[in-house]
């Protein structure tokens, strides 16, 4: 299955990609705090959007890709906006400001993650003192997540092929049982991975954890 993943564009060469990972990390975190904390006016919003758009251009990220990912915050925004007419305490401006904060934050996040390859990020985290076994687990999650999604998809497809007109109850039961099998298969896979690791010399006492 073709996966859309944030790392797609992280291997490009642009001035932003070339920045040192720690710089990117610090700037990114600073931006997040800024967007969360600063009292916002429309003027500031405009400036921020401009700045981030500029960043997107410099990093040569396709706009469609960025916009698509930004849509994630929509459900939450709808939730907030939906209750404006019902409760006088909130105003449209407040909702608008929240929306602005959310969109700016997510744009910064997309910019950050699209300009730093995942393994570089993990390296940086490791240098910042995150324990080695945590980095290893992160690494595994990233590696096997797509594999599991594919497995799940295959199971779901197989079940749909055998029962096209299902009741919701049936769907729930089938999906749950598939999850049960998936967790078992995952466990067994982890046993094989451990064997593969042992085969290549992985041993507790020697590796620095």
């Amino acid at each position, binding site marked *: 299955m073709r996966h859309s993943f944030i*790392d797609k564009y992280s*291997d490009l060469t642009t001035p932003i990609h070339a920045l040192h990972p720690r710089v990117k990390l610090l700037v990114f975190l600073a931006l997040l705090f800024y967007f969360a904390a600063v009292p916002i006016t429309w003027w500031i919003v405009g400036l921020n959007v401009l700045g981030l758009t500029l960043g997107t251009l410099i990093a040569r990220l396709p706009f469609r890709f960025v916009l698509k990912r930004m849509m994630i915050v929509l459900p939450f925004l709808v939730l907030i906006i939906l209750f404006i007419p019902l409760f006088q305490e909130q105003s449209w401006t407040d909702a608008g400001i929240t929306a602005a904060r959310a969109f700016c934050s997510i744009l910064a996040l997309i910019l950050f993650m699209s300009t730093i390859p*995942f*393994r570089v990020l*993990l390296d940086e985290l490791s240098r910042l003192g995150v324990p080695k076994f945590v980095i290893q687990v992160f*690494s*595994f999650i*990233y*590696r*096997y997540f*797509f*594999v599991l999604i594919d497995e799940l998809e295959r199971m779901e497809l197989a079940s749909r092929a055998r029962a096209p007109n299902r009741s919701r109850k049936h769907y729930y039961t089938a999906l749950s049982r598939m999850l049960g099998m998936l967790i078992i298969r995952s466990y067994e*896979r982890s046993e*094989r*991975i451990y*064997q*593969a*690791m*042992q*085969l*290549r*010399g*992985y*041993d507790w006492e*020697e*590796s620095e954890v």
Partner: protein
Amino acid sequence: MTSLIEFENYTYRYPDGTTALSGFTMNVEQRERVGIVGPNGAGKTTALLALSGLIFGEGTIRIDGETLQKKNGRQLRSRVGLVFQNPDDQLFMPTVYEDVVFGPKNLGWNAAQVDKAAKEALDAVELPGYEQKSSHHLSSGEKKRVAIATVLAMQPDILVLDEPTTNLDPHARRRLMQLLASLEISTIIAGHDLELILELCTRAVIINNGAVIKTGEPKELFQDKLLMEENYLEVPYSLRKVREDVY
């Protein structure tokens, strides 16, 4: 000259009681390519796991004269390059480079040696320049070759492959066969791809019910219809003299 690999009367029982190998005895000499064939459940994979020191049973296994035991298991293990059937189980790092250097690093080699080993291994499997690629996004043929590279990087004495051609399309399979033919390393290939074994191996071993049934030249063995069918195998198509109906 001592055999490279020796199984002597090796028996292994799984925790639930099933006997996987029973009095298993076979040798592999230096610079040989041996094919192990047999029906599912015959004990092929178990034998390979035992050879790699991942499981321990009764009897003796010797690698280049040294007896394999729990205490020297770790060192001897790196001399046996076992490649699993499913590369996804064996490629567990985010990038090809990290997977290939995992073994050498664990062997304690220094950075220069590690890097050199990785480069040579990737060259040997004809995937130079793949270092930064993410294993998940490779084709099955490429994954299989990277998996082989991960064990070649440790410079083992013998390459052991479990069902290497599963899930490979004909082109990838052909390329894998060309690769294996070009590698000058003792090899064991276990599996069902009889044509592969015919082309690549100088000797074949038929096993069933955990024991060796017969060993000999692949062509001779595989032509023996009775022998093959007794062991739930079939004469490979290329050796059939008569076109039989599908039955």
